[in-house]
């Protein structure tokens, strides 16, 4: 169980960082305007559908832990989550690269928002 949790952590941290970095970069390019960012997210929702899938997967996994005791369910759920995290890492690495013309600047504001995101996540 510890090994499985460790694998989830090792994949989850870079996936979280890449998703955070990409969306922070877009927010910066949208000049931190909430309406513009919302509009951009609406127009580009097809790019990030995998995040919705990952959230649903996480909820199903948590619900499964509470209601289904069969060990195969837990293992199958973990494998599916690992696979999804690997896909997120690969896809977001390229998405970060695709938007590298004007790179993300780590201004104090960005650092504060990243810190807030991490606290909220934890």
């Amino acid at each position, binding site marked *: 169980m510890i090994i499985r949790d460790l694998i989830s952590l090792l994949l989850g941290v870079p996936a979280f960082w890449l998703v955070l970095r990409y969306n922070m970069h877009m927010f910066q390019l949208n000049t931190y305007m909430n309406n513009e960012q919302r509009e951009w997210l609406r127009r580009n929702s097809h790019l990030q559908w*995998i995040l919705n899938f990952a959230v649903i997967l996480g909820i199903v996994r948590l619900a499964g832990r509470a209601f289904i005791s069969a060990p195969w369910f837990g293992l199958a759920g973990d494998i599916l989550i690992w696979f999804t995290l690997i896909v997120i890492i690969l*896809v977001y690495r390229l998405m970060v690269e695709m938007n590298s013309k004007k790179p993300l600047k780590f201004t104090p504001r960005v650092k504060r928002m990243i810190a807030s995101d991490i606290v909220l996540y934890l």
Partner: protein
Amino acid sequence: MNITIGGLKINYKISGPDGGTDAPVLVVLQGWGTSLEIYDSVAAAVNDRYRVVQFDLPGFGASDEPEEPWNVDAYADFFCEFMEALGISKAVLLGHSYGGRVIIKLAARDSLPFEIEKIVLVDSAGVMPERSASQKFKVKLYKIKRTFLMSRPVHAMFPEVIDYWMSKQGSEDYRNASPVMKRCLVLAVNEDLQHLMPSVKQETLLVWGDLDLDTPISDAHKMEQKMPNAALVVLEGTDHYSFLYKPVEFRNILRAFLGIGGAA
């Protein structure tokens, strides 16, 4: 100037003595991804004595692209038509990189509608590089990845990201080429012409940059060994465009080979 051959508009230019004279002719066959202007210094080196024909092969420079992917033989066939259309019956052929490939194909043919007087191959292609086991593995892995990612259901999930990844693969020439020209390039680079080299009987000058990474100097040594009448001149400190880096040396070598010493 333009001329239409096989329905394709071909861009070309001729410099040197007037067409009415019986001046000898030198035709320049270009390298992949170039346009004819890049060979202006080559033309200027000899066009006081030679009529120099520069042109863009189909899909290169300002010439029309073929409708279907052409292999090197198809380009050689086109060149024969081009020579006939210009009424050239005898010429010195100078080929850079891909152009050298076409010349090797032509020179190895039993019959041609024109006579090849002499050949100059500059950083020429034609020798397929030997791939190491790890390179072969990488190519196989890439093919598996490409097949997987370009399959309809997978591509539909992340079209922009997969297209971006695909656009980063391959050499610069490959990335810059249109879909048809990409397939032409694949057809060319997967064909080794070493078996044809002993059939190149014409007097041949090989000019090479010792720092050439696209067609390394080892290719030149193989060509020199296999072509019965070939001699190699190395322009030290130059790469795949040796004629551009040392134009004066190149001009002197070319003029000496053509037997027209003295300044252009």
